């Protein structure tokens, strides 16, 4: 059904999207928590910074990544000096680009859920002997779970669709950075490539439908949803 090359592209997209979303998750949650729960000087600036990848055209984000993480960029040089590694032309770079593009969406979804958590329940947990962190893990986080799941779905979908920042940052290398959108772009460059484009686009849709099904299944297992169904 799929050619080995197509399988390769799908596998790469899954790897890039999965790694991007999972690696981004803790940072995104921390940011969401900070923005939802704390008032500090510079909060608005941080909020704006988080939104940046949404506001800038992806190509600009890719260019900024190139400037920072390229072999001559400050972070790129540091990575090379200390770890002997580079993100240029690597799927890890594609994952970085996808993660940065997904960040604003993930932060917002989780922030909305965190803002909805009834803090009095955290107080109740504390009186029962739970420390700050225990209350967080057992009360706040589970209650914010719908937002975390929404963030995963949004982030994964965004990663699967990410094009501009990726091609600008890590170029379009088959087997390494040519994810589905880049393959679609390549197919679009070929006159009469519409059939190929359609095929690849349907693959993208299938992937995200899969992600959606998984998240729907997970949501059904969260207590909030079981409550709603009156289990």
């Amino acid at each position, binding site marked *: 059904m799929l050619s080995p090359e197509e399988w390769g592209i799908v596998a790469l997209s899954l790897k890039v999207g999965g790694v991007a979303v999972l690696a981004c998750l803790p940072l995104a949650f921390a940011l969401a928590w900070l923005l939802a729960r704390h008032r500090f000087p510079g909060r608005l600036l941080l909020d704006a910074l988080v939104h940046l990848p949404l506001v800038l055209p992806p190509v600009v984000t890719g*260019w900024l990544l190139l*400037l920072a993480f*390229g072999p001559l960029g400050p972070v790129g040089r540091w990575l090379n000096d200390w770890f002997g590694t580079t993100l240029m032309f690597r799927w890890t770079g594609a994952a970085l680009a996808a993660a940065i593009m997904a960040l604003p969406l993930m932060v917002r979804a989780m922030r909305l859920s965190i803002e909805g958590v009834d803090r009095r329940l955290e107080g109740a947990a504390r009186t029962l002997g739970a420390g700050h962190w225990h209350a967080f893990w057992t009360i706040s986080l589970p209650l914010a779970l719908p937002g975390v799941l929404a963030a995963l779905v949004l982030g994964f979908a965004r990663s699967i669709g990410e094009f501009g920042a990726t091609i600008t940052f890590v*170029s379009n290398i088959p*087997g390494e950075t040519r994810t589905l959108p880049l393959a679609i*772009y*390549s197919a679009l*460059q070929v*006159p009469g490539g519409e059939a190929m484009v359609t095929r690849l686009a349907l693959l993208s849709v299938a992937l995200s439908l899969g992600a959606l099904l998984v998240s729907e299944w997970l949501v059904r297992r969260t207590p909030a949803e079981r409550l709603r169904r009156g289990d």
Partner: protein
Amino acid sequence: ATAAERGPVVMAAASLQEALTAAADAWAAKGHARPLLSFAGSSALARQIVAGAPADLFLSADEPWMDAVAKAGLLRPGTRTTLLGNRLVLVGPASGRLRLTPAPGFPLAHALGGGRLALADPDAVPAGKYAKAALTALGVWRGVAGRLAPAENVRAAMALVEHGAAPLGIVYATDARASKRVRVVGIFPASSHPPIRYPVALLKASRHPDAMGFRNFLASREGRAIFARYGFAAP
């Protein structure tokens, strides 16, 4: 994979995709490791090279971006050469009957009727810059300047004609030739615009032993023949 198994990394303008892929296949058929071809806009590629991308060869769709890389001192001296040429053509939908020969003062505005002229962004994209130069030289730029549909690249401009959004478009001959949904309405005189040239050069950062060999293969008679099959002209 070792460097030798992986083949050199070639960064090439997206419009070369089909032809260069065929050339790479031919090269690989000779027993060489297949080059890794990365297709994107020339500007994106040039920026990656300037930012230190570990690539071997650069094929640009126009001279200025190759110049930019050269100015950054990143080309292997003596390896730059002009690989290909191309022609600029006026296209319309395949179903139309219009014939229009681009010549000084030709009635382009009239032929557009109420529609727009699709072309690559004349301020930015090479194909658009050539088109602007040609129309200016032929004295019709003023008449159509307010009725342009500047697209992201040549293929997108052609798509506008293919889908009936624009009655006419200016694209490369190679693109027009490959699409069944448009037909060439007229060919721009080569003298009406600066020569369309695709330069190639080896990058200073290149470490791959095959890189120079592949460059030479592309510039060889055999390589040029492959490009000619896809409608590219000799420079």
